[in-house]
């Protein structure tokens, strides 16, 4: 599979009566890496969930490759190449690690599960464990590995580093870079560790109260101290 472009235009979405996203537009070229930044509760998770078809979309369009995802069901989006690693991990608690991975395979052969084990040897050790019996970090690995097994063309990663040991974070970011570099996937990343996200991405957007408040290249951001402080609330990048 080769990476596909993603284009979001004028998207608004939310939960029941509460609107969270308003007129969000951006596009990501095939094979490139977008960092989605923003403070607590600004709608990053909502944005990803809407693209994945799990949150109510009020208006706007989402195009993946040449397909309009608008009213598609989640399953069809996944089959069109969308991969989503949610912030809440959402592993299947009553399935074993291996079965969890199996679900992510889509229609690939069972033997492909080994790819996940290569990526996270820890999972291989725990393959017979139930999802509910994994440690926090192991769940995070499982969640990421499971989605990658499905060979998505566009991958949405919502805070994939949360709860992972520093060594593993490094390995994982390296793995993501490799996937992107191989031209297999377009990657969108939400990450609290801003520096890691900026190091990884070739483009960034910042959400503020459900709107895109800034958009540009990571390098530009380092220069704009005021933006960083206002939109990200941190004293400076290091």
């Amino acid at each position: 599979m080769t990476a596909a472009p993603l284009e979001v235009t004028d998207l608004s979405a939310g939960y029941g009566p509460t609107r969270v996203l308003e007129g969000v537009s951006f596009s990501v070229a095939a094979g490139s890496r977008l960092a989605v930044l923003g403070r607590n509760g600004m709608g990053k998770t909502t944005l990803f969930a809407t693209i994945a078809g799990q949150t109510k979309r009020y208006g706007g369009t989402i195009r993946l490759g040449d397909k309009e995802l608008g009213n598609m069901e989640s399953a069809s989006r996944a089959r069109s190449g969308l991969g989503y690693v949610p912030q809440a991990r959402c592993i299947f608690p009553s399935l074993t690690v291996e079965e969890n991975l199996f679900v992510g395979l889509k229609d690939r052969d069972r033997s492909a599960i080994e790819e996940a084990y290569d990526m996270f040897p820890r999972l291989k050790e725990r393959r017979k464990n139930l999802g509910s019996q994994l440690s926090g970090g192991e769940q995070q690995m499982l969640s990421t590995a499971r989605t990658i097994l499905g060979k998505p063309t566009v991958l949405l990663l919502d805070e994939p580093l949360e709860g992972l040991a520093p060594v593993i974070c490094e390995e994982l970011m390296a793995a993501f870079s490799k996937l992107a570099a191989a031209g297999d996937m377009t990657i969108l990343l939400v990450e609290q560790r801003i520096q890691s996200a900026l190091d990884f991405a070739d483009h960034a957007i910042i959400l503020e109260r459900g709107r895109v408040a800034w958009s540009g290249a990571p390098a530009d951001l380092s220069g704009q101290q005021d933006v960083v402080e206002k939109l990200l609330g941190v004293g400076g990048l290091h």
Partner: protein
Amino acid sequence: MQTVFSVGTDALAYGMVLFVISIGLSVTMGLMRVVNLAHGAFAMIGGYIASYAAQTLGFGYAAAILIAVVGTIIIAIPVERFLYRRIYGAPELTQVLMTIGITFCVIGIANYVFGPTLKTIPLPDTLRGPVDLGFRSIAAHKLFAIACGVVVAGGLWFLIEKTPFGVKLRASVDNAAMAASLGVRTKIVYAVSFAVAVGLAAFGGIVGAELLPIEPYYALRYMVTFLVVVSVGGAGSIPGALLACLVLGGIDTTGRYLLPEYGEFFFYLAVIAIVCTFPRGLLGRKK
């Protein structure tokens, strides 16, 4: 000694009949997480169709079973599409309300269409009458029920634990939204599972009709029994349900033999004891 054997045989037979009827409920309740109080209603529909096919249309037993199972599934399709689909993942109590409502309707309709009398499904000659086991005689249809129980248990266990479909079903139940985001077509998975559960209910209703006869109130009369058996076994666990049926069938049968006037006490005390010792059921799925 002979008595022990004899009571043991009864226990086995009764337990297996319970198993065949309730196992479909273990699928809806344990795997699909729907507290399906209408399970008995589908078993009853199966029984009615079989009875109608055999009595009125003159089909043979095997053909009647087939017609009834297929017929029940066909009836269940719109019910699943328009009613059950709305309560997957809803709070348990909402499911209770909906499925009791469905049960009431089915009872009312059955009463209207078939009248309030008992309906029987004539057995073929081979399954009729007693069979001599040497130390006692037992009804042939009970042996048939035991055989059905074994086959159903094996088949269902394989389907759920060993096939890709089983994995997808369990994943959808754990987290439907996530399963969908991984490309599982959860609606289809659910519909198929529901059809399997309903088909099993119908099958059980027919095979068990000799002990639990078909009449409109069937749907409520045995609801508690099914519910108890499935939960004691651990909802969603095929071996668990089997074990529970055998244990409870054993306790019930022994109790009724030794102290019939306290049979009910034995049964429910045993239920309490088992549930307190194994809060997830005898072989319940871990969550």
